[in-house]
C-alpha cells in the first residue's frame, strides 16, 4: 500500500480540530477563579481543589449521574432482552419491530422532546426527575440493541448447548455462560447509553419541569456566567470515560492476542 502523506496530514489536522474545544474546556478548568470564566487569567488548581464550591453545579452533576446510571441500567436490561430475541428467535412482525427500534434514532430530538412534553401535559403527569429517567431509558434502548445484538450474533450457540448437555439449569446457562460472554457488548452499550443520557439536553429540556441536570444547568447558566467548577466536572467525566475506553480497547486487544495464540 502506497503511503499517502496528504491524507495523513489532513487527518491529523481534523483530529486536532475535534480536540480543540475539549482542550479549551479542560484548560479553562484551571483558570484563576473570578466572577466569570471567559478570559484567561493564569494557571491555578483552585477550581479543582474547591470542586464542590458551587452547590448548584454539584446538585446538577449528581442528578445527571443518577439519571444516567438508572436509565443505563433499565435500557441495558430491556435492550439486551430484545437483542437476544432478534438473533435467536423467529417471530411475526419482525420488520415492524425493526422499524420501531430504528425510528427513535431517526426522529429529531426536538420532536421526541415536544412529544413527551405534550404527552405528560395531556396526561397531567408532573414533570421532574421521574419523567427525565423515563425519557432517557427510551432513547437509550435502540442504541443498546444495535450494540448488544452484534455481540449476540458473534456468540456460538454450541457453547450454551454444551452447558445444557451437562445438566445446567436455564438460569445457570444464562448466568455462567451467556451473560459473561455478552458482558463486553453490554458494557460497551452501557458506556454509550450513559454518555448519551449524561449529555442529553434537548429532550431533557422538555420533560424536566424544574429539575436541573448538568446540561440544562449549563444552558441556563450560559446566559450569565458558567462557574469554572462546571468545567472541572466535565473534565473529570471526560478523563474517566477516556480511561474506560482505553481499558476496554486494551482488554479487547489482549483477548484477540490470546485467541490468536490458542487458535
Amino acid at each position, binding site marked *: 500500500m502506497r503511503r*499517502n502523506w496528504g*491524507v*495523513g496530514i489532513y*487527518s491529523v489536522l*481534523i483530529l486536532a480540530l*475535534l*480536540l480543540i*474545544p*475539549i482542550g*479549551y*474546556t479542560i484548560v479553562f478548568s484551571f483558570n484563576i477563579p473570578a466572577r466569570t470564566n471567559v478570559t484567561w487569567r493564569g494557571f491555578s488548581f483552585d477550581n479543582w481543589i474547591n470542586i464542590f464550591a458551587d452547590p448548584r453545579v454539584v446538585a446538577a452533576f449528581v442528578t445527571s449521574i443518577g439519571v444516567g446510571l438508572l436509565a443505563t441500567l433499565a435500557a441495558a436490561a*430491556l*435492550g439486551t*432482552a430484545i437483542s437476544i*430475541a432478534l438473533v435467536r*428467535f423467529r417471530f411475526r412482525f419482525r420488520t415492524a*419491530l*425493526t422499524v*420501531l427500534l*430504528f*425510528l*427513535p434514532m*431517526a*426522529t*429529531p*430530538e*426536538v420532536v*421526541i422532546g*415536544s*412529544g413527551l*412534553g*405534550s*404527552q405528560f*401535559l395531556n396526561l397531567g403527569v408532573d414533570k421532574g426527575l421521574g419523567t427525565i429517567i*423515563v*425519557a432517557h431509558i*427510551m432513547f437509550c434502548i*435502540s*442504541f443498546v440493541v444495535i*450494540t*448488544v445484538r452484534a455481540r449476540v*450474533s*458473534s*456468540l456460538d*450457540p454450541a457453547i450454551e448447548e454444551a452447558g445444557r448437555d451437562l445438566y445446567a439449569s436455564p438460569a445457570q446457562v444464562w448466568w455462567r455462560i451467556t451473560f459473561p460472554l455478552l458482558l463486553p457488548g453490554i458494557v460497551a452499550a452501557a458506556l454509550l447509553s450513559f454518555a448519551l443520557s449524561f*449529555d442529553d*439536553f*434537548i429532550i431533557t429540556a*422538555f420533560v424536566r419541569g424544574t429539575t436541573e441536570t*448538568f*446540561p440544562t444547568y*449549563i*444552558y441556563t447558566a*450560559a446566559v450569565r456566567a*458558567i462557574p469554572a467548577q462546571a468545567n472541572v466536572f*466535565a473534565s473529570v467525566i*471526560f478523563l474517566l470515560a477516556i480511561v474506560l*475506553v*482505553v481499558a476496554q*480497547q486494551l482488554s479487547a486487544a489482549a483477548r484477540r492476542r490470546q485467541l490468536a495464540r490458542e487458535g
Partner: protein
Amino acid sequence: MAFGAFSGETVVIEQPRRRSRAALWLLLPGVVYLAATYLAPLVSLVVTSLKTPDLTNFDIGRYQYAFEIGNYGHVIATYWPIILRSFGYSALATIFALLISYPLAYFIGVTLRTYPLWQALALILVIAPFFMSFLLRTLAWKAIFADEGPVIHFLQSLNILPANAHLNGTPFMVIFGLTYNFIPFMALPIYTSLERLDLRLLEAGSDLYANPGSTFLRVTVPLSLPGVVSGTLLTFIPATGDYVNASPQFLGSTQTAMVGNVISDTYFNLQDYPSAAALSIILMVLILIPVAIYLSVTKTEDLL
C-alpha cells in the same frame, strides 16, 4: 447496518432461529416501553397540534381538544422561511461533514490498518467528543470565535476580516458548529465500511489497468456507500432538529433561528403547545421522506 457502527463486533455466526414463546417474554417489556414512550407521544403530538385555545379559561397555555387543521396552515405560513433555512443549514453541514470525514475515515480504516495501535488511538480521538459536554464544547467555539478572540484577531492581522467583524451570530458559525458537532457521527459509520474493505479488490482494479482515481471511484466508493448513507442520516436528521448551535446564547442569533428554536420558543415562552406540536409533526414528516427513500433502497433488516 445503519447504526451498527457503534458496536465494534465484526464476527457473525449464523444461528438457527427458533420459534418459541420465550421470544414474547424477551420482547414484551421493551416493546411495550417503546410503544408507551415513543409511539404514544407521537399520537399525543398529533392530538395537541389540533387543539384550539380554551374559551372557558383564558390563562396562558390552556387549550381544549378540537380538530383545528388550520393550525398547520398557520405555522407553515408564519415559519416557512425558517423551516427552509433549517434544511439548508443542515444540508450544508451534512455535505461539509461528509467531505471532511471521508478522508479521515479512509486514513483510519485503510491506511492505518497495518498499525493497529495507531488505528485504535485515532478511533478513540474520533469518539472523544462524545464524552465532553456538547454545550461546553459549543461555548468553547463561541469563545474562540468571539470578537476579541484569537481567530478574529488572527484574520484581522492578515487583513482578511475588517476591524469590526463578527463571526458569532452569523450563518457561517451555525453551519460550522453543526459540521463540527457531527463529524464523529459521519466518520464512524464510513470507517466501519472502509475497515471491512478487502484491499485485494483495489489490487484487482490496478491489475485491470484502472488508475488509482477510477479504482477509488468505482471500487472504494461503492463499497463504502452503506457507511456514507448511515453517516448522512446520522448527521442530517439530528442537525435539522438541533437548536443549540443556532441559539443566540451559543453560535447563532435571531437571524439564524432554525425550526428547533421556534419549537422551543413556542413551547416554553409562548406556551403555544398546538403550534409547537404542529411544527414538530411537519419537521418529522419532512425528515421521514428522505429516510423512507433510504428504507426503500436498502432492506429494512439492514436498518440496525
